[in-house]
């Protein structure tokens, strides 16, 4: 059997047959990824009668935003949207603040227990929230944070991954810079804010993007904490309504699109940073 030529690595151009195969494979996969998303967006403009057409038609009869208007008017869709935005923004800010500070301490100071602490933080990357959410729920309940947005914002703010990525990045900042600032008489908080933070922008961007995506899409934790409708996030509302079938599917589709849209927009704008961030940071 002759080996497929395109499995080779290197800079040389491929033979035409290999090129055709490579493109065919990539285009087929890209279609497989994009088709469900595009189909969802197109269908979110269809009326319920159009949705039940067999066989279905590709384009909706008209691109009227009826489903979106209906979904906004029904239930407390605006409240879920607001909750999702509030939780995502507040949690991301909190994550950046506490993780950057911790990463700085771990990267640029010598103190007792530094290595142990770092190892403990790293080790918990392996402890999935799913495994400890009952005792976490207990803590949150004891603090009176069930059915409060704070219960959604605070618990997951100190992410080990965030600390790890930021620390790795800060290690590349030369110590001399910090020493020089100290000799110039700058205090520790000032050095952190004025010298270190501005140099960390790329790493901060990566952690911020990840945080936004994770928190916006977060489901299990909000499902546990937000038991009351006024604290539902979009994810929780959508899953509950879809499971109970109290909402017609054309509205569910419109809600789905609204639920996906913000992170897709963030992704499209920040795609390069995300891709480079993953390629450059601790994953290698």
């Amino acid at each position: 059997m002759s080996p497929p030529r395109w499995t080779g690595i290197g800079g040389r151009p491929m033979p035409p047959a290999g090129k055709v195969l490579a493109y065919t494979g990539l285009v087929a996969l890209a279609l497989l990824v994009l088709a469900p998303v595009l189909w969802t967006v197109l269908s979110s403009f269809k009326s319920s009668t159009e949705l039940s057409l067999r066989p279905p038609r590709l384009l909706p009869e008209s691109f009227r935003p009826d489903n979106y208007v209906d979904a906004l008017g029904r239930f407390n869709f605006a409240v879920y949207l607001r909750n999702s935005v509030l939780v995502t923004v507040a949690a991301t800010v909190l994550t950046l603040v506490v993780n950057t500070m911790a990463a700085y301490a771990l990267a640029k100071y010598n103190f007792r227990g530094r290595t142990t602490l770092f190892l403990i933080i790293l080790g918990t990357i392996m402890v999935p929230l799913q495994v400890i959410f009952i005792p976490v729920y207990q803590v949150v309940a004891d603090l009176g944070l069930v059915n409060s947005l704070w219960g959604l914002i605070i618990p997951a703010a100190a992410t080990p991954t965030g600390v790890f990525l930021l620390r790795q990045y800060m290690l590349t900042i030369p110590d001399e810079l910090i020493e020089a600032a100290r000799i110039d008489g700058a205090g520790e908080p000032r050095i952190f804010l004025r010298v270190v933070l501005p140099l960390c922008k790329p790493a901060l961007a990566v952690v911020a993007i990840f945080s936004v995506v994770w928190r916006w899409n977060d489901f299990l934790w909000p499902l546990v904490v937000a038991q009351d409708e006024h604290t539902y996030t979009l994810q929780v509302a959508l899953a509950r309504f879809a499971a109970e079938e109290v909402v017609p599917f054309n509205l569910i589709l419109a809600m789905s699109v609204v639920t996906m849209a913000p992170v897709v927009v963030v992704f499209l704008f920040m795609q390069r940073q995300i891709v480079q961030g993953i390629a450059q940071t601790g994953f290698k």
Partner: protein
Amino acid sequence: MTGRRIGWGQRLAPYLFLLPNLLIFGVFTIYPALNSVNISFYESSNGRTFRPVGLDNYRRILSDEQFWSAAANTLVFVLAYVLISVLVALGVAVLLNRRLRGRGFFRATFFLPMVLSPVVVGLVWGWLLQGRGGLINTVLGGLGLPTPGWLVDPALAMVAAVGVGVWIHLGFYALILLAGLQAIDPHLHEAAALDGAGPWQRFRLITVPLLRPTTLVVLVLATIAGFQSFDFLYSLTGGGPLGATTLLVQYIYQRGFESPISYGLASAGSVLLFVVILLVTLVQFGLARRREAV
């Protein structure tokens, strides 16, 4: 040494910088993690009154048919998900490592599902996979192929679950592998080619061994992700039909939050799941190290 004296501010600073993080981390991660071991020796159905029961929770869970069924489902799901994900991602990474037009477009496209809401992804795929009138079966039927009840037949539901899982994460793994591929010196390939090695030989003898550390990272990440799968399954199959796609995480969720609630059983399940994840990860690292020594 004539170094400057370290002042109080500088000595205290690291602890103050760490404080907010450690406070949140300690209260909401470390303490609960330790406490879940503790709770597994108690029984409670309301989270208020706890009755010590020794090892009873472990005895009960190990004789619970649903637990074993969830464990078996998890095993099948994780194995299939990890193998398929890593193999396809490797293929995609190799393709994307070539000089191709539109490489950036493909890279971004494959990564896209990773940022989508898993809940929506599960919901949408559930709709696409509907037995009658679903888009997938409409297309299959149009091609004269069988149109099975994807989410009704227990075996097919597992196929769908694995497929959707792979669909979500493929681009992420491919991206990490691609970064690993690009770190391989192209001169190695050129030298091997001059020595008469064909593309397949070069792939097997140069790419695969040099990519091993990256592959290990992907393998470990995929395994942990596999064990943690919950969100998209919850909205794709809800664990059904007949519990066929209920994984351990969902089993734990059900014991903890759906009646009859048993925090003790749920915590015992959590401890067991964590031990399994830990063991599997250690085995993976161990195997990788042994290979390297050979």
